[in-house]
């Protein structure tokens, strides 16, 4: 290994990257765009849910609960129909997405300590809003019940009203808090897998790769010279995304940078390995792009990056264990929000180490073989 030749290769790669007009926006604008997209659009929290309240009880308690819902900040009360039957047309017309029905006898049941039933009617068409809306409503009802119990000393035993939903660590359920750690890993994957495989394939397409290996440059030097710039690039991007996340989107950071760096280091070997494998499979940059998409789509869908793994159908869940991003997401999110360390996250670290070693060594073997033929 000659350090001066590696430095030369890195210098050359830097010049090529800096002059690639197609790549530059990809490197700097894309992470920013994704942050904005995921931070504001996808990750935006559900507020102003159009809501109807049917109060058939018309008592102090029912009015209190109604105003608790009204003041929670998530719901806008559009209608207060007298009858439950008038809800259907409201929902059909998309005028309300959630309705709270307080039946007659609500206060009486509460005071008797009986099971006091309230009904939440949710428009399930938009499943995400539906689950968020009912989650918020249950939470508000639960809080109201608890505070009422403290005042009156009456503890209800019916589950109908004591909704025991407690949201920890992300009390406002801000999706951006989970999104930013996810983006960190996702962008790292894009830079190392997609950009590096493109760079190697471009070199093969133009014949400069075969030229490299008739000069004194060794395969090891070539690989280090190729990987280093992309690791550096990915590091800059990761730091950028984390800073924007913490300072602009106010994502609370309770984590430990060492744990995050260790996790990402293992992950980057996996993604670089994937990039190298793609570069041996693809003959053209276009093919490399298609292979990257082939890899990316299951990764986005099955890793829990956007869709929670818990909500996936039973038979799909085992497949998610094969997605490296799954582990790094758990690790990053847990460390970001809860500050979980190595002792709690060792299963994730172990899984990622297995991926890093096996994928990277398979990539090295393939790369050598491809050159030898």
């Amino acid at each position, binding site marked *: 290994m000659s350090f001066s030749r590696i430095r030369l290769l890195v210098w050359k790669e830097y010049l090529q990257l800096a002059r690639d007009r197609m790549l530059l926006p990809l490197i700097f604008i894309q992470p920013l765009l994704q942050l904005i997209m995921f931070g504001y659009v996808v990750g935006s929290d559900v507020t102003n849910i159009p809501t109807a309240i049917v109060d058939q009880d018309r008592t102090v308690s029912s009015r209190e609960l109604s105003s608790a819902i009204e003041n929670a900040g998530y719901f806008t009360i559009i209608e207060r129909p007298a009858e439950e039957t008038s809800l259907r047309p409201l929902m059909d017309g998309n005028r309300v997405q959630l309705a709270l029905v307080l039946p007659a006898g609500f206060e009486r049941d509460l005071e008797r300590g009986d099971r006091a039933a309230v009904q939440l009617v949710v428009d399930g068409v938009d499943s995400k809003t539906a689950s968020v809306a009912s989650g918020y409503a249950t939470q508000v009802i639960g809080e109201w019940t608890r505070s009422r119990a403290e005042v009156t000393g009456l503890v209800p035993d019916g589950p109908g009203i004591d909704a025991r939903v407690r949201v920890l660590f992300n009390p406002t359920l801000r999706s951006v808090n989970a999104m930013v750690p996810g983006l960190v890993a996702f962008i790292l994957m894009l830079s190392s897998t997609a950009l590096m495989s493109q760079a190697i394939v471009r070199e093969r397409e133009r014949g*400069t790769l075969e030229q490299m290996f*008739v000069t004194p440059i060794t395969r090891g030097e070539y690989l280090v010279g190729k990987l280093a710039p992309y690791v550096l690039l990915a590091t800059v991007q990761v730091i950028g995304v984390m800073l924007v996340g913490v300072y602009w989107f106010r994502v609370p950071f309770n984590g430990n940078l060492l744990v995050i760096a260790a996790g990402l280091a293992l992950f980057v070997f996996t993604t670089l390995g994937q990039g190298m494998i793609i570069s041996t499979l693809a003959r053209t940059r276009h093919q490399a792009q298609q292979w990257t998409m082939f890899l990316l789509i299951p990764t986005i869908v099955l890793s829990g990056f956007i869709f929670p793994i818990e909500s996936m159908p039973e038979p799909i869940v085992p497949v998610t264990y094969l997605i490296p991003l799954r582990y790094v997401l758990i690790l990053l999110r847990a460390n970001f929000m809860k500050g979980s360390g190595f002792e709690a996250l060792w299963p994730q670290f172990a899984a990622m180490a297995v991926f890093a070693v096996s994928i990277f060594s398979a990539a090295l073997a393939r790369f050598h073989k491809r050159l030898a033929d």
Partner: protein
Amino acid sequence: MPLFRRHRTDEPEPEMAPDASGTPAPAPTEPPPAPAAAVHVRGLTKRFGHFTAVDNIDLDVRRGEIFGFLGPNGSGKTTTIRMLCGVIAPTDGEATVLGFDAVGQAEDIRRSIGYMSQRFSLFEDLTVEENLKFYAGVYGIADERYEQRRAYILEMAGLQGREGELTANLSVGWKQRLALGCATIHEPELLFLDEPTSGVDPTARKRFWELLYDLAESGITLFVTTHYMDEAARCSRVAFIYEGSIVTEGTPDTLRTTLVNDTIFEVTTGDVDAAIEALTASPAIAEAYLSGAALHVNVGTRIDGPEVIASTLTTAGLEALSTRVVTPTLEDVFVHLVNRERASSVPGQ
């Protein structure tokens, strides 16, 4: 067996045609204590799975010569060069380059050779200067020597004042000369050129060959592959590889004498495809093939060539627009040799 299998250094510049140089061949000088041959290959074989790309070839390239390695596409030229540069390992056989073993001492080989491929292999998104700097750095050339080499290469390529230009913006001829400059920046003892002139216009090709002659004169051994026959004629010695085997080797002039007893006619006709079919089918005609826009017809030792050609074409409902005798070119030789090779590989013949 090929006719001109071996040339030994004890033969004084063999068979140089007097009309090529205008002067008699120079008197043999005292052989110096021979340095290792530029290339020495015995029984070299490369198989990819069941496909034999290079099949048990022998090659000897002497120092200072321009060695032409000829053959159609896919005949094993590039694979051979890749083995000689130590990029891929041979399946069998031995190869030494400049005295270094191609398998065990590949790194020594790569330090002392230059390589230029038909794709020129420049970094298109780097400038002329940056390309030179990169290759100078790869070979560990010191700053002072780099300044000299840079000046020399820029002049040779006609690129003075264009150092800051992106290589992508250069036209083919300049790219080609810059690639030659990059491949020789470390003044290698041996330069491999893999179809260095493909896709380059004739004027640029001529200029490029003048540069190659300059390099050869300065003592660099050149190992050139090409499928241009006029370029083959410029080499001091050629070997012809077909389907992985060396079919023949010798000087361009001795090879031409292979067909000294045969008569070759150039025939122009309307429908060349039908004409080739008709002529090939005739037992009186040895070979018929396309050469440029016309046909070349080898009638062997027959003296009634024109009559045979005319009657064969007439029978097929065709007409020869012109028929004239031509001096055999290297292309004619190679077509002849390839046909002979094919015939001998058909069982029962």
